[in-house]
């Protein structure tokens, strides 16, 4: 209601978020899982006095630091950048509710950097004790940063008591927080296993070392899969009712995700117990990695789509309407409340507005069809644009094709009957202009 909306052709600005967030998720979970494994590995190498294994870990560290410190860190900031651009109101809410959670996470980022660079630049020079200590600092700070950000992402889908209390801990320790931490920690370990298979199959490495790394990483990956299953079931029990209903409604997506996870699990088991590791060759490990990543991506997508129509459950709808605001906006009308589309119309059609700046509906009949469409478009962009494009991603044309305008108006009137959509907060004339515009645009009648 307060902020301008960024129009991105074809996909809509919100779809830029996954473009940044999905690569980030794949790298940041490796940053956590890899951090834990590096620490465990360094301990193991010293304990078993195995210089070859240690030498391997050093090579892994180079790859690891280059990937996580650069790509992981920048895409992490990038998510924040993109959510703020496509959904400022949500970002503002999150920032005002959790800024000190983020500030705390920032401290863990500093520790991650200091320890990662220590491992990267001083690998040969650190004595065994110091070496393990640095690795432990990295592993711990990376994992804590996962815990902190999970509190906030889990909050968005299950806000618990927070909408009533607005208390930090009520939001942070929300019902799905702990299960999400378990799932993500497991995901991090499992994904790291897949990264390691890929790594050892892509570099030149002695067969014994390869064997050892694969066997070792597999053990942790299996534990990771166990945690995913455990956390997943726990999560399923903890999610709010509106998500439960959706899971029941969309069995195909859910099965798909479970199958992807299972595939990873099965593959991981194979690797854990198979004797020879010769078959761990590049094309196959890359494929395995892609399968695992697809499972991961599917998981994130499902989580996000379950959250609709909210960006913050029970508090804020995706289209920037607060849940408590619905009746008031309806009473005043959408265009009289949403600041930017209103300013847009005020500049173009001053005759529609009273001296007090209120939209005067009695003036509507004087508008040309083109002007009516223009108003319809503004309503579409600001009320629906956060989830629909006209003909691209989640195309509205696909939803209305074959229906007649009256039916669509009826659907819009009770928009919240659809489990993924927020209530329509416009008045009936706004509904009419919106639907009129959509049908005209579909016929190619307006640009």
């Amino acid at each position, binding site marked *: 209601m307060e902020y*301008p909306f960024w129009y991105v052709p074809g996909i809509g600005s919100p779809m830029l978020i996954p473009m940044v967030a999905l690569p980030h998720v794949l790298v940041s979970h490796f940053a956590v899982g890899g951090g834990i494994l590096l620490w465990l590995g360094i301990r193991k190498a010293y304990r078993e006095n195995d210089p070859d294994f240690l030498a391997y870990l050093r090579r892994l560290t180079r790859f690891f630091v280059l990937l996580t410190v*650069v790509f992981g860190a920048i895409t992490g900031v990038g998510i924040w*950048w993109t959510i703020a*651009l496509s959904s400022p109101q949500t970002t503002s809410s999150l920032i*005002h509710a959790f800024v000190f959670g983020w*500030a705390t996470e920032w401290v863990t980022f500093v*520790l991650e950097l200091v320890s990662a660079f220590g491992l990267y630049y001083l690998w040969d020079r650190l004595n065994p004790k110091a070496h393990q200590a640095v690795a432990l600092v990295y592993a711990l700070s990376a994992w804590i940063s996962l815990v902190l950000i999970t509190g906030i992402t889990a909050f968005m889908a299950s806000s618990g008591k927070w909408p009533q209390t607005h208390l930090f*801990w009520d939001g942070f320790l929300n019902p799905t927080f702990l299960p999400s931490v378990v799932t993500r920690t497991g995901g991090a370990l499992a994904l790291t296993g897949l990264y390691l298979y890929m790594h050892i199959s892509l570099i030149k490495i002695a067969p014994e070392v390869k064997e050892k790394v694969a066997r070792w990483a597999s053990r942790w990956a299996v534990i990771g899969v166990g945690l995913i299953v455990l956390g997943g079931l726990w999560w399923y029990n903890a999610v709010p009712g509106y998500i439960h209903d959706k899971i029941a409604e969309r069995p195909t997506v859910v099965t798909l995700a479970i199958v992807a996870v299972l595939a990873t699990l099965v593959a991981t088991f194979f690797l854990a117990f198979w004797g020879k590791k010769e078959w761990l060759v590049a094309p196959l490990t890359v494929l395995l990695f892609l399968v695992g990543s697809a499972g991961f991506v599917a998981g994130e997508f499902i989580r996000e789509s379950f959250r609709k129509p909210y960006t913050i459950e029970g508090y804020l709808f995706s289209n920037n309407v607060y849940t408590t605001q619905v009746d008031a906006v309806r009473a005043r009308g959408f265009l009289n409340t949403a600041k930017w*589309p209103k*300013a847009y119309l005020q500049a173009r059609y001053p005759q529609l507005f009273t001296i007090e700046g209120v939209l005067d509906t009695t003036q509507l009949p004087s508008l040309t069809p083109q002007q009516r469409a223009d108003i319809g478009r503004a309503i579409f962009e600001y009320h629906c644009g956060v989830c629909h494009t006209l003909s691209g991603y989640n195309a509205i044309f696909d939803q209305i094709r074959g229906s007649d305008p009256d039916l669509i108006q009826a659907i819009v009137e009770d928009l919240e009957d659809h489990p993924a959509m927020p209530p329509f907060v416009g008045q009936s004339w706004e509904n009419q202009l919106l639907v009129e515009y959509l049908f005209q645009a579909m016929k190619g009648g307006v640009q």
Partner: protein
Amino acid sequence: MTPIPAFDPLGLPAPIWFLLALKVFGFWVHLIFMGLWFAGFVVGLLLLPSNGSLRLAGQRLLKRIPVIIAFGVNAGIVPLLFLQVLYPQFFYTSTVLQAWYWFSVIVLIIFAYYGTYYYVHNAEREERKRVATLIGWLSALIFLFLGIVFASEMQLMVTPDRWSDFFRHTIGGAVLGNRLAFDGIDLQRYVMVFGLSLSTVAAFFVFDRHLLNGSSEVQPEELRTLVLGLTFLGLVIFGAGAVPYLRHLQPYLKGIGLWKFLAGVGPFLALLGGVLYAIQPATSTAWLLVIFQALSLLFNAITRQIVQVRELAQHVDLSSLPLHIQLSPILLFLITFVVGVIVTLWLLRMYRTAST
């Protein structure tokens, strides 16, 4: 005129002074690192054709840029966090109005950052030297460009009366975000930061040579002219931006006395450090320059904050915003911060032992 969004109904999560202090602190740390890739990258590359100490000093800086970027970007998170707490209605709106440019920051940083690593790893390999140098320059230029985006954003943010120019480019009122706000005032801001950064580079050279136990092959005698030159140029370039900018700011700076000159004191201090070092290049004068430059950046961070609050005061009175303070998350942060500082120092001591 375009509207200004309402402040977030959740209110401020901490006292204003605390939020401002953290914002200034974070920006100060960010400035320290940022100058070293913003101006330092170019300076380092320009020093390569010279020989002896200057080339070596430049190389040593270039080699550290990846780490410097990591910490500098990281420090940048802090002021951006608190900026969004204090001024969400201005910050978000102005980024959306030039959305593609703001978004491009992320993509460009990734390119420039990997470019920097590529440069560092390959600059000394005969067969890849040319490509590496090219990529190094490209990365340095990208960082220079990113400065333009940031200057534009920080200025558009405090001038909502300019928003309507950008709001004209829409589809049904949804913003296209394909215009950048860069203008004369932004250029002045940009130039000021570049000038400050040159002095930071000078401070880095003496820091590296005298205080980090850097290469003894870098001769202080040869470093003198460079340090003096950089601090002098830093002052001149800063002044070139600051003088017209101060004129533009006049209306907002009434009644704050000498504070408005605080930022300008900085580069003079740095020059003083540069002169002292040039007279007697030694550890003591190196310390002085480093401290003077750190102070200069701190003064600038403080004055910029004063100016920002003042410019926006006509649109929002910070003290009238709702407060919703909760102590425990603040404590969580402060305790973690202290633990973080202790662990960092512990690690650094370990690194020191390891590297000697």
